[in-house]
């Protein structure tokens, strides 16, 4: 559809001036300008919407690992203030750093686990998860005895447990030593800390979900909406890198409850376990319970063949 006729030059055919003093050229220019302005307004409309939800401070906020302790204090105070304004709840957001000489390990006794899903529920409550979607970092698979095929695990079982022909395998972040989720992140919004915990800076994450696709354990979760938690149920003990209220459109994951574990406490899922199937501790302490399990039980890791080197171990009693 190319018009091959030469454009009419001003000398070849001068147009007759209409009575109103307006040429077709000016009319088209005006129309073009109007359409252009409208298109521009339409194009920047998302920006104006977005600006309402985000302060300038938040937009200009640096990466967690670039923030000075003072600036991080300012950021956390601002977040506490925003939570107070939005929900009326006084929360405390802390910056819990890895302790020297500590590397966390988790072990789970599949012979003892009954599949009651109390760990998943405790995670939901502890980590201020979105209530409507029932989010949790733990997925409990009901598995056929004699097979470790995760694809055959069922998550929505609802009959009394344990079923005599099944065993139950809770799966959460394995805090891999070679985490594929970290290496695929295009903006370094997720990284592995010295105590082994893989964390996310929710304010740096762009929500591309590459990490979710990269994780062989399906351990990462995406906030499709801003998580809704009733004010009365908000857990006020929060960590910047763990259970603070997340914004919409960012990834999140299990952090072994670092706001608890880095203060020496046990993770919420372990405390909720009625059977004691879960063992948590410091892998670098030869006297720790987790080390006893690694030494005396036949432990295995999930999908060893993919080379992720998890810090999460499973075992059966002999």
């Amino acid at each position, binding site marked *: 559809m190319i018009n091959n006729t030469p454009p009419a030059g001003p000398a070849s055919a001068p147009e007759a001036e209409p009575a109103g003093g307006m040429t077709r050229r000016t009319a088209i220019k005006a129309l073009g300008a109007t359409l252009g302005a409208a298109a521009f307004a339409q194009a920047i409309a998302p920006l104006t919407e977005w600006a309402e939800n985000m302060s300038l401070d938040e937009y200009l906020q640096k990466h967690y690992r670039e923030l000075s302790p003072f600036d991080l204090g300012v950021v956390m105070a601002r977040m506490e203030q925003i939570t107070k304004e939005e929900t009326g709840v006084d929360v405390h957001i802390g910056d819990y*750093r890895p302790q*020297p000489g500590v590397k966390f390990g988790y072990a789970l*006794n599949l012979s003892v686990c009954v599949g009651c899903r109390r760990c998943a*529920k405790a995670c939901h409550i502890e980590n201020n998860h979105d209530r409507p979607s029932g989010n949790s970092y733990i997925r409990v698979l009901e598995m056929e005895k004699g097979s470790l095929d995760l694809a055959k695990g069922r998550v929505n079982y609802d009959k009394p447990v344990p079923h005599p022909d099944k065993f139950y395998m809770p799966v959460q972040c394995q805090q891999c030593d070679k985490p594929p989720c970290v290496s695929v992140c295009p903006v370094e919004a997720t990284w592995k*800390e010295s105590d082994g915990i893989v964390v996310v800076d929710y304010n740096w994450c762009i929500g591309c979900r590459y990490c979710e696709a990269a994780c062989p354990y399906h351990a990462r979760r995406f906030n499709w909406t801003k998580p809704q938690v009733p004010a009365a149920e908000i857990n006020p003990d929060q960590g910047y890198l763990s259970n603070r209220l997340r914004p919409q459109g960012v990834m999140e994951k299990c952090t072994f409850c670092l706001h608890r574990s880095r203060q020496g406490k046990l993770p919420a899922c372990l405390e909720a376990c009625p059977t004691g199937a879960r063992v*948590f501790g410091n892998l670098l302490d030869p006297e720790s*319970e987790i080390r006893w399990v690694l030494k005396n039980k036949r432990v295995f890791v999930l999908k060893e063949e993919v080379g992720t080197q998890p810090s999460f171990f499973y075992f059966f009693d002999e």
Partner: protein
Amino acid sequence: MKGRLILLPLASVVLLALGGQWLLGEAKLGGAREFSAEVVSVGQPAKPTKPAARAEVPPHRPAGYQPKVATGLIDHHGNAVGVACMTCHATKTPNLEAGREGRVPAEFHQKLVYAHGEQSCLSCHNSEDYDALRLADGRKLAFADAQKLCQQCHGPQTRDYLHGSHGGMRGYWDKTKGERTRLTCTDCHDAHAPAYPAWTPVFAPKDGGALQQKAREEKSNHSTTTHDQ
């Protein structure tokens, strides 16, 4: 000619060094994007002292704890009325055969569900003092220490319990920072019928994985089931 050949690599080395300097300078300018690797410790560093408490069973029941037998009656405060064992057993002759090979007591304890192997009542209860228990070697054992009774037979479970891989717990993994409370055997296992009961699972998942699985199952069962869920 030879001198020139030597000069050429020399000049390139000098140029490279200069270029490297310049590149390094650039890298420094852009260094704000590099993350510092140093780790700041907020809490106390983990103490190197060995936690001595690993193989110790913390008392869960208070010393002097005595169980009571429910009567089904309710007092005027609304509390259930229980009677101490010796209220009745002080005047009764011990029945050495009770509980053995499914023999239930002729009277009393009729509602007791008993499914604990080949034990008789007096394998554990003390016929000389019903307010106490009895170890296999005949020694008297307070009810508060009932765990020791279980440990006589259940070796692997005891070993795992003492190493923290059996039985629920709460508190601190780092015992230099806080206390830990642990459940004991009879918190989860009924001493008379110790098989762990079946539970109704809580917190059914609502996420995409569950929905996808449901769809998959419905697809595979399409010929046999209707979509009545």
